[in-house]
């Protein structure tokens, strides 16, 4: 049985074969994880579809098209065959693979290019060094261009004119970015360059929510098996505020403004591989404990590499909690085409003035980054004040339904 790079999502055409957990010749059982695959959105484990002896034909670290055969499981053999460890070799080329030279093959491995994506210009389709240069040029041309020359000058990284040394002792180390990290960096840079991003701040007194949580936590946990976290309150508060300020939930598409009559809320979760933002679909229909459980489910899936692309697609608004890392104040970056993102922060006891008295209250700074092209300052500030209000007086959420 062949092992192939699976379909992992509509927009995903290639994946990085990040790591083999097994060696060629290993006996594997059904459903045992074989390798880890990384796309520009998620990482996931590929499990064995059958029991047998594994043959590996693709080297880890290569980027491969969806559907590429990376190995096979010989089901006829179930007993441990002699696991003769032979180092990875280029398998004898098949008829369909165009001819290449050793330097071209190494260049393709380095660039993560498969022979199939190159049109060889040489005799009988031979891939020449010039063909690779041309492909590189095309890839560069097709990459999204930043909008204005002014911002390019300000933010484009300086161009390297010579190759850096590959290995510079233990003081520096150089690794290529994983597809996920590359995608994150592209998206973040695009968000800065292609939107008119601005951030407004406020703060909220969390006394009521804190006492609510401590009063009902046990009861809630027993009844729903969820810990009554802070995040569900913010999701609820944002949805109510979004209903009052629909443009904050809208997006720009070309010259049109697209309003969304649903609330798909992205919740940013930090992971080892980077920030991942799974989406709570139709969050306005979810109860507090359902939101709690959904978030816990996402965290679990991220840890076990089982997050699906569908968990990440879409989203109309995002909440990012920098507070879990202890951040006091920060400006979140938009996740286009969304128009706004709420940043939560650490809760700190601070001296505040209430009714002419200095009192100590558990306070949290709130930051709303928004695309000024579509949201006016008045709306942004109004939205954030509304969120503050619901957080400070959670019973209002009840009154709003």
């Amino acid at each position, binding site marked *: 049985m062949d092992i192939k790079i699976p379909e992992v999502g509509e927009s995903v055409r290639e994946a990085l074969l990040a790591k083999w957990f097994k*060696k060629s010749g290993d006996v594997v059982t059904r459903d045992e994880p074989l390798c880890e695959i990384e796309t520009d959105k998620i990482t996931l484990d590929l499990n064995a579809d059958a029991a047998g002896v594994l043959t590996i034909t693709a*080297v*880890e*670290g*290569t980027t491969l098209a969806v559907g590429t055969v990376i190995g096979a499981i010989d089901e006829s053999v179930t007993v441990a065959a*002699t*696991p*003769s*460890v*032979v*180092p*990875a*070799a*280029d398998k*004898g*080329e098949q*008829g369909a693979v165009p*001819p*290449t*030279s*050793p330097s071209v*093959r*190494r260049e393709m*491995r*380095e660039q993560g290019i498969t022979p199939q994506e190159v049109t060889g210009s040489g*005799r*009988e389709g*031979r891939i020449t060094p010039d063909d690779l240069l041309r492909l590189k040029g095309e890839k560069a041309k097709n990459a999204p261009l930043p909008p204005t020359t002014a911002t390019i000058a300000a933010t484009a990284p300086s161009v390297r004119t010579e190759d850096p*040394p*590959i*290995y*510079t*002792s*233990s003081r520096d180390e*150089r*690794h*290529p970015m994983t597809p996920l990290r590359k995608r994150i960096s592209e998206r973040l840079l695009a968000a800065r360059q292609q939107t008119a991003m601005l951030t407004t701040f406020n703060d909220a007194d969390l006394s009521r929510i804190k006492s609510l949580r401590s009063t009902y936590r046990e009861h809630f946990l027993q009844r729903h098996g969820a810990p009554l976290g802070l995040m569900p309150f913010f999701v609820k508060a944002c949805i109510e505020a979004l209903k009052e300020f629909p443009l904050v939930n809208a997006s720009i598409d070309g010259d049109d403004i697209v309003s969304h009559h649903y609330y798909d809320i992205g919740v940013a979760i930090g992971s080892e591989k980077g920030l991942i933002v799974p989406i709570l679909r139709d969050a306005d229909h979810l109860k507090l404990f359902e939101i709690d459980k959904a978030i816990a489910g996402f965290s679990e899936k991220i840890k076990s590499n089982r997050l699906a692309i569908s968990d990440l697609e879409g989203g109309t608004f995002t909440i990012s909690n920098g507070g879990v890392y202890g951040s006091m104040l920060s400006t979140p970056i938009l996740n286009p085409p969304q128009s706004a993102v709420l940043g939560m922060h650490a809760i700190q006891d601070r001296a505040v003035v209430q009714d002419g008295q200095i009192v100590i209250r558990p306070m949290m700074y709130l930051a709303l980054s928004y695309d000024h092209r579509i949201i006016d300052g008045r709306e942004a500030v109004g939205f954030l004040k509304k969120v503050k209000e619901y957080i400070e007086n959670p019973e209002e959420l009840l009154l709003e339904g």
Partner: protein
Amino acid sequence: MSEETLFDLIVIGAGPGGYVAAIRGAQLGMKVAIVEKRATPGGVCLNEGCIPSKALLDSSELFSLARDKFALHGITVDAPALDLAKMMSRKADVVKKLTDGITFLLKKNGIERYEGVALLKGASTAGQQQVAVEMPGGTALIAAAKVILATGSDAAGLPGIPFDGQLVVSAREALSFITVPEHLIVAGGGVIGLELGSVWRRLGARVTVIEMLPQLLPTMDRQATEQLYRSLRKQGIQFKLGTRITGLVKNGDRGTVQFDSGNGTEELECDKLLVAVGRRPVTGGVGLETVGVRLTETGRVAIDEEYQTSVPGIYAIGDLVAGPMLAHKASEEGVVCVERMAGMKSLVEYNIIPGVVYTWPEAASVGQSEEQLKEGGVAYRSGRFNFAALGRARCMDESEGFVKILADQESDRVLGVHIVGPRASDLIAEAVAVMSFTGTARDIGLTCHAHPTLSEAMREAALDLHKEAIHA
């Protein structure tokens, strides 16, 4: 014992795998140490293998030419006299020049040399692999995040007939006999046995090769080995194939070898028995057991695609790991292992590693044999050209042998090339290059070859594959 000295990379063994890995590591910016128990670098290859044997093969070839071929070319000389001591000292000179060259290269690349026996000490708490080097002046403790084992191999013996350095010898001694043996029996019809058998045959010894298998060089293409067998027999080397050596009776400095070809025990007297039945990896004395480096069933060191052993941070290359025991294979692995450490996507292309037998005529091959293709059910075409029909070979009076090219029936990709003939060792380079470039037999046929050269045989064989040979 002073405090340990820290490196980025420690290479154990300065043979063709180790010293190449060390230099490549230094080129990539690593701080490298190399440990070698010999006084000179270069390993078996340089000190008692490839290089000294080629020095003697070239000397003895000249001797036999003067004796047997000069007259044919119209050169009349008195029968040449052999000054074996001189021949040996020239050989030693060649070895010294080359080992000195490597000493210089190591120094030039800033590689720290430790002359002594290395012992793996396991990982420190900081994750560094520690190595103790026992040197005449005491023990040095060095450590690095990465250690490459490149300790190579040594000669395997015959069961019940241990090496004694006098009568029963390995290649090491057979490269330094002080007199020409009267009768040299060679146990093993492999590369080493045939090469050293050729040396002493040319210098006047009677030579008998006893091989257990029914065929010489079993992994090579059958047609090639049969051609070589005929040529060597013509030179007077005697062969007993399918024959097992059962015992040795010593009497003084001579011995009687007992063997069985299937018709009961027979005997042959000799004054030297060269045992060249194979080599085994040197896995003892390095501390592999203590740190937990796992071996395969065949006794080689088990490694993964990064050449990393079962112990993270410890790597192995060359004769220690699976594959043919060849100097150039070890060097390739050394380079690739270190480049992969540095994050480069290097690979050893194991299917295109050439192999050479330096007899005369020489035999060289790359890729698959006709037998392997048949067994694998591959549809192939074969093209062949005999040196007897080649102008340059005729001029040299070296007309034995042929070039054979095997290519995929459909794609015409070259799958294997087998050469027996003059300078096959150099001619094979073209085949390796073409195969590396995934070239076809047509590619060779369409490439202009200078006339008159031996390389024309390659082109004619490629043309013959499509039944278009001009000179056949």
